[in-house]
Structures are given as C-alpha cells and as structure tokens.
C-alpha cells in the first residue's frame, strides 16, 4: 500500500476578491505519476505554488504529515520544482549554475549530475542568457533531476518546446527520476504526450477539484459515442458538455453505462474525457 506523501486539506486561495482555489482537498501517494489538468486560469499553478509554501492560503498542506508553512525552506529537502517559465539566472554560465545548485542544495547527487551532463551536450562556459529555450529547459532538468528528492513538481515544463524535445524531456524524467518511492506531479496542456505515463489524473476547474481518479479506471468509465446527425437528439438527451460533428456523424463522450441503440462506440482518450467534463472551445452545449 502506498503512503500519502502530500495531503491537502480545505485549501482556499484568494487573489484579491477572486477565488483561485476553492476548498481543495487531495491526497497524493508515493510512487505515482499524477497529472493535473485544467483550463488556463483553473488554478493549477496556484495549487502547485501553495504546495511549495510560496503562497499564503486558508487550509492546510502537509508533506509527510508535517504542515508546510509560508516560505518554509525545509520543503525543498524532499521536493524539487520545475516552473512554467525557464526561470534560470541569465547572468550565470551553465557551469556556474550547476556549481551554485551543488553548493546550496545538500540533496545534490554528483553521479547523477555527471551522467546527465554527459548526455546533455550543454556548453558549460556559455551564459544561460545565450542558451536556446530548449537548452535552458535541458539545464533546468539537469539541475532538478540531479537532486535526491522524493517528489517532483512540474508546472507546464515543456511549454513552447518542439515535439522532439518534449518527447526527450519526458523520457529523461522517466528514465532518470521515477522509481517506486518517488512521485511526479505534472501539470501540462499536452495531455496526449503524457497520457501513457500517467497513473492518476486530477482535473481542476474554476479552483475546484472535479475529479481525482486512476487513469485506467477513468478511461473505462467513459467512451466515445457516435450517431448519425439525424439522430443527434438521442445523444443530446444525455446532456453531453461537448459535442462535435463531422462526416455526417455527431460525436460525444458519455459515461460507459449509457447504451444508445444503433450508436458506434470508441475508446476515449484523456483529452476527450477532460473536454467532456469541463467543456471546451469546440461546440459546447
């Protein structure tokens, strides 16, 4: 049985009068790869920053049964974080950045760092400011994966990177970081790319967690249902949040227990299910 490494209880966060997180409660287990999905502004980054103690909030966030206080540095003995922006110091060179993290972070693992460095082709003497976006992400990944921590938080880490690099990024994380005693919590818009990696999924909308479930179970609970356009009304009676029309068919994602005579069924992917649950920019109803 896996242990809860992170526990979030009744987490609420306001930005002025705007409620960014609304009474969020979650338990994140050890040894899992967990995805966090949500539209822009749903509260994903806010949730991650609350988990790191960066934001003041109502409710509690516990790491290994210990409450995380605002701006508490002990969190980072167990947790590493890659934000959505490069976030490196442009004034330092690659080597200086590595030396700095090695000096300040007792979790630094020299062997892992050397291994990652040997396959990264990073120009050690070049200033970070002169690196490409891909190189910067590679460096951020190197300094993060070289830390012996049990929890890795990734907030849209591959934003703006090309598909080949995104693939390499996730392969590196899986190969070099993930183990039975480690947890990865990742928020991303590229659901299709991480779909096969994820074991659990959390969907957040308007600051509320609307779903937290194992990916396999979730995929069994929903399926794609297609009917000819003239039979659309038989689909609409089930109030799907999102429908699409193409080639004379109308399609929606519905719970698997709904049977419609004459309909064709298909396996839904995470993106389909996400859109079915929170609605989307396609043809909403």
């Amino acid at each position, binding site marked *: 049985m896996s242990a809860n490494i992170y526990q979030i209880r009744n987490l609420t966060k306001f930005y002025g009068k705007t409620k960014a997180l609304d009474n969020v409660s979650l338990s994140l287990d050890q040894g899992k790869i967990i995805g966090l999905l949500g539209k822009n502004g749903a509260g994903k*980054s806010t949730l991650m*920053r609350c988990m790191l103690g960066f934001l*003041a909030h109502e409710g509690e966030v516990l790491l290994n049964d210990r409450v995380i206080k605002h701006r508490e540095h002990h969190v980072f003995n167990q947790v590493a974080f890659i*934000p959505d922006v490069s976030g490196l*110091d*442009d*004034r330092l060179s690659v080597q200086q950045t590595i030396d700095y993290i090695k*000096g*300040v972070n007792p979790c630094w693992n020299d062997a892992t760092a050397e291994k990652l460095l040997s396959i990264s082709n990073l120009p050690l003497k070049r200033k970070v400011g002169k690196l490409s976006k891909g190189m910067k992400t590679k460096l951020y990944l190197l300094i993060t994966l070289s830390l012996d921590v049990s929890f890795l938080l990734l907030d849209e880490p591959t934003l703006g990177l090309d598909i080949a690099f995104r693939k390499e990024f996730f392969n590196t994380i899986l190969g070099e970081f993930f183990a039975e005693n480690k947890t990865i919590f990742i928020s991303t818009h590229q659901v299709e790319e991480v779909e096969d990696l994820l074991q659990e999924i959390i969907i957040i909308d308007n600051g509320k967690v609307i779903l937290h479930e194992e990916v396999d179970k979730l995929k069994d609970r929903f399926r794609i249902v297609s009917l000819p356009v003239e039979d659309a009304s038989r689909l609409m009676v089930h109030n799907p949040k999102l429908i699409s029309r193409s080639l004379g068919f109308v399609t929606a994602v519905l719970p698997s227990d709904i049977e419609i005579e004459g309909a064709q069924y298909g396996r839904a992917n995470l993106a389909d299910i996400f859109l079915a649950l929170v609605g989307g920019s396609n043809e909403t109803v």
Partner: protein
Amino acid sequence: MKQCKALLIKEYRTNWLTILTPLWFTAGVYVIGLAGILIGLLKEQSLNWAVSVHGVPAGMSNMILYSSIYAMSLLLGTVAVISAITLADNFINGGFKRKCEILHLCQPVSLTKILGIKYLLMVPGMILIYAVLALFNTLVLSGVFSWFTPVHLYFSLVAWMQSVVEISLSLVFLSSLFWFFAGLFRWKSFLMGILTILAIQAAISILNWTAGLQIPSLLNYLGRLASVRFEIHGGAAPQMMDSVFNLITLKWQMICNWDSVMKLIYGVLFFCGGFWLYRRRELS
C-alpha cells in the same frame, strides 16, 4: 558553511559590476589623470605646471594633504553609497525582475542565510572595497605630495580612517533604508522610497500648518543622518595651519555623537524591516 560560500559566490557573480563600481570609478579617475599628464608631457610642459607648492609652510602642507585626502575619500565614498543603494534593490528584487526568483528560493536554504549573505555583501563588503580603494588613493596622493613638499603620512592615514568611519556610518544607514524600501516595493523601489519620504514630509507639513503642531521635519532629520560634513571655516583656517591636530580632534567629536549611534540602530531596524517584508511576500 558550504551553502554560505555558494550563495556568496553566486551574489558576487550576478552583481559584480555594481559591487565593483567604486573600483571602476577610481580606475576612471586614474586613467583620466594619467591621460592628462601624458598629454601635458607630449606638449613638452613640465609636470610642475599644475602643482606649485614651493614655499608653503609645513603645517599648511599637512592641512592641504589632510583636506585633500578627506575630500577625495568622501567623493569615492559617495560612489560607494550609491552602489550600495543600487545593490539593495538588485539583491531584493533582482531575482523577481529577472524571473529567476523561484530557482533561488526552491533550494533548502533559510531566508536568514540568503538575505544575510546579501546584506553582508551590500554593507561590510562595500565598506571593505571602499576602505581598500580609499587607502590606495591615500597612499598615492601622499606619495605625490611628498614628491613636492615634506608631509607627514600620519595625517593622510587619519584622514583616511576618519572618512572611512564617517562614510561607513552613512552607508549603513542609507543602504539599509533603501533595503527596507526594496522589501516594500518590487518595482522602482528607489523612486517609490523617495516618494514615500516626500509624502510623509508633506503630511507633516500639512499637520504643522493646519493644526499648529511642531513636528520636526523628517527631510531635515534624514538629510542630517545621510550627509557627511567636512567644514573648514575660513576664519579658523589660519590658526589650524599650525595645528591640524585640532581639526582631527574636532572631526572625531563630530563622528562620535548620537547621530552615529542612531545611524547604526536605524541600519539594524531597516534590515529587519526589509527582511520581514520580503519573508511575507508571495511567489508566483
């Protein structure tokens, strides 16, 4: 200790241009001075064209030497104070402005260590750089003086020491004040700090004017604490020519007063205030 060393090196590497501003200033002055001499020599002028101190009494020479070194050190000290004020904003808000604050604050290092190292570089570090450069200038200027007229090195070193103590006190006060403002304002902290002081002064003036109160001027008080005074009254000068010691004693009396103690106390308070404000900040 390993963390402190890494933080110190990182702060130096990211702010070395500002930290070494007094060095750039000094080097600039020397380059301009040497260029002037070189041009003079190329025009076949004697080096004495600019310096003519023959026949000046020994007491007067020492007075001129003391005053010159004091004035030179104050000029360099002003540059050091401006650099320290710039560093205050760079250290507190630099990471935020460059979007790398999260990287630095995602390490298991206490804020006390992080801010302590920054303050160490901003105040004792800047004072050390200033003191060393001022000492170098003192020795160079004393050497130049002694080339033309007999002078005593004692007066040079006392002028150096007094100016370093006085500038250091002002540096502690002013850099800590703007450290506090940097903690209070993420953007344009210097300007916002000045505007805050002016707003408080305006409020005091309005209160004094409308309610007939006698609240002392904040601007005058801050000006008194921030400034470094060097006065040789025209009438007193002739008596002091033979006794530079009087001037030195007078200067020590001016340095060792309550204002100096208050500068140190305010320095500690503003450091703590800036620390508290920075700790309360949210990172996004």
